[in-house]
């Protein structure tokens, strides 16, 4: 059954019966047209499941595109800035892509299912873009968002959960993918920076997979989680998000909202040697200029998350001068640090910055100027995320 965009609001996704049953909070949001839980019960509890146990998160609303054919690799290389040839079959690679002016459209992951078979997963709708990219090339593009359900199983016990469910994935290294059972694809990927897996299955088998994982995970503390907990984890892990930390140029009304990979700190994913790709000529010119702005991670004094804060530095005669703003912020419960993604003017990099944080204290707003220092890209980066085989817990 297709889920056409509806005027009546977001529609239930493939796991909805289970999410509905698990939801005590009844806190629903619209994620790409699909009814998705902000939280099922309490965000804090779900977040700690990601960090200390295992969390099961429905990521089916991600857009999933299949690109297949003798020239599928060329199609993707035409779109993304990295060299897709370097993703071996059975591997997953991060990629971002730009418009003709070198401004980021979206980022996502490319699954190389075979020499001529790829899957692209991302947030933005890219079907017509990919179809146009394939014009004149021998490859077929299809949207499998509706046909494919996806679950993220993230957290230190996630490997044990899969093992208990009878899925043999011990040899999977980070960014590997495998098909432990026909029709079930498992990749060691995720948006939490921790040990974790993503599972991809035809929509009609979605509920059975959910039940199987919940059953197997009971002893390992598995908990369904919502979007808020996932968002906390990804900020800690240092993963910028389209629509929050930068705006897709395709979605932006204001051309000035466009950001280059260099400005986003993703310049290492731009491969000028691989031949032409969308925006290459513009990026080649932009590479020579110092970026006008930078997406950075900050470590901010205090424990109040600096969501939406404007950033200042001391100017002439001690006046505050605005030099940027926070795009995502979080008091990291695991790192015990007040972290944020922020966009700052290029020349403000390395300067002493202050975040203007507003606090609502029993009916009254108070302002605090909190010192903001450059932070590591990832506030939380455990070794267990990379150990192969993963530890059993």
């Amino acid at each position: 059954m297709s889920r056409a965009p509806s005027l009546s609001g977001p529609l239930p996704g493939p796991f909805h019966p289970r999410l509905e049953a698990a939801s005590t909070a009844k806190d629903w949001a619209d994620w790409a047209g699909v009814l998705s839980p902000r939280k099922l019960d309490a965000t804090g509890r779900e977040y700690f499941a990601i960090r200390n146990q295992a969390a099961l998160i429905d990521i089916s609303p991600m857009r999933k595109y299949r690109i297949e054919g003798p020239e599928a690799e060329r199609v993707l290389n035409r779109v993304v800035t990295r060299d897709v040839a370097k993703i071996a079959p059975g591997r997953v690679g991060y990629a971002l892509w730009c418009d003709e002016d070198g401004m980021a459209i979206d980022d996502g992951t490319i699954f190389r299912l075979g020499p001529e078979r790829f899957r692209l997963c991302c947030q933005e709708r890219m079907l017509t873009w990919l179809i146009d990219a394939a014009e004149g090339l021998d490859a077929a593009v299809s949207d499998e968002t509706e046909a494919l359900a996806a679950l993220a199983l993230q957290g230190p016990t996630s490997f044990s959960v899969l093992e208990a469910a009878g899925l043999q994935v011990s040899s999977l290294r980070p960014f590997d993918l495998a098909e432990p059972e026909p029709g079930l694809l498992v990749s060691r990927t995720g948006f939490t920076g921790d040990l974790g897996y993503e599972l991809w299955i035809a929509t009609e088998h979605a509920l059975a997979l959910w039940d199987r994982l919940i059953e197997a995970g009971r002893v390992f503390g598995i908990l369904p989680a919502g979007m808020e907990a996932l968002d906390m984890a990804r900020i800690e892990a240092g993963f910028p998000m389209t629509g929050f930390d930068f705006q897709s140029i395709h979605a932006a009304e204001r051309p000035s909202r466009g950001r280059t990979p260099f400005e986003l700190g993703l310049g290492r994913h731009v491969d000028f040697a691989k031949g032409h790709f969308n925006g290459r000529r513009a990026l080649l010119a932009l590479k020579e200029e110092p970026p006008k702005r930078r997406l950075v991670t900050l470590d901010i004094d205090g424990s109040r998350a600096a969501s939406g804060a404007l950033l200042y530095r001391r100017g002439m005669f001690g006046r505050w001068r605005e030099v940027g703003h926070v795009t995502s912020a979080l008091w990291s419960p695991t790192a015990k640090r007040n972290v944020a993604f922020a966009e700052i003017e290029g020349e403000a990099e390395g300067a002493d910055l202050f975040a203007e944080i507003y606090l609502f204290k029993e009916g009254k707003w108070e302002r605090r100027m909190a010192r903001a220092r450059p932070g590591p890209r990832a506030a939380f980066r455990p070794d267990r995320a990379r150990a192969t085989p993963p530890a059993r817990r």
Partner: protein
Amino acid sequence: MAERLKAAVIGAGVNGLVAAAALARGGCEVTVIERGAAPGGMMALGLFARGPHPAALEALGLKPGALGPAIPTVALCPSGRHVLVEGAEARFADGSAHPGAERWRVLSRRLDRFAAALAPLLTGAPPPMRLRAEGLPGLLRFALRLRLLGARDMRELLRIGLSNAADLAADALPEGPLAGLLAFDSVLGSRAGPMAPGTVVPLLLRRAPLRRMEGLAARLAAASEGKGARLRLGAGAARILFEDDRAHGVLLDDGERVEADLVLSSLGAAQTLALAGPALFDIEAQRRIGAIRAQGAAARVDLDFAAPPRLPGLDPAHHGARLVLAPSVQAVEPAYDPVKYGRLPALPVMEGRIDGARLSLTVQCVPHDAPRDRIVAATLAALETVAPGLGGEVRHAGALSPADIEAMTGAPGGHWHHGEIALDQFLTLRPANGMARHAMGPPGLFLCGAGAHPGGDVTGLPGLNGARAALEAMR
């Protein structure tokens, strides 16, 4: 001494030949690659030319006077009272005064002044999307010319500039063959009716005197060769070659490689993209090129008679003139309407001339793939309105639909201008946004055909502008 730059020009139509001459004059070693056995491209199918433009002739080293005498137009009328038009002068073909003559003169002179004000926009790069220093002098020159028109004329140009030819005719002329001629010239070669917005623009581009087409292609080719261009006839371009994201030459159908630092294509943008391979272009550019409206609506028809055909009211002395059958604005617009739905009109409009026992015509308002016999039948039906019984005297009839013309010449959609001349495909937006300054995709590749700025007809200006842009980029 630095080695001479090598340039390859694809297509030896008027624009390819002018581009080649301008490149040769700019110091390049130029090879023109033409698939056909003779130079000229679409010129072989045209009957009349208003060009090339003096600036293009200068690049070829030709004088405007060398092109032969200008010819008059006879606007045919079913009543037999045809109207003879020579530039701004109009009178009945029998020599008597036409009641609309004065109004025709006033309108013609005004359009001439407007065309002169627009001229700086045509012979150089179009105004830039974002105003930068290099675009400023051209824009200022245009603004000054506009202002020098005087308040009244300037206001009038701004009023009619975006308007349509039917309204202009209704304001300025009595309905009839003169108004029909104006409407006809506003849509000739286009897929549009005179009520379409923007149809005044083609009128402003068509102020130069008319001449017969034949012999012109050979003369232009000879002049281009005289400037140092090398013509390779019967050599089709199979692919445009690139190295390190730069144009590097052209691969011919027979496998030969023509090395070049600059490649100029007088083909349509879509055809050029196909020769270069879409993977070298950004997806946005490919989308815009795919959206260019280029579907021809003009067919060529040749009718052979046993003896020179006689049209009632037409003096055989005017057989060499351009004959236009578009008896009124109210005849041109309905002729266009069915084309929108892929149907032939009952009475198409046309221009033509009589050479001995042959009547050659360009028939306007023909759907892209209309069957040839139906084109002939509709043409004869229209001709019967001015010459009853003419159809019965035809010994042999031949027609080329826009689809045939496309197959013969490679012109996109068989379109005269390689793309509609309309407000959304003009100046900065011609052939498409981001390509108006002739550069297209990888460095070293340029457009120089009718689809490029400023557009079609036999002006040679896209070729000249394309060559200038290419030379500038190498500086």
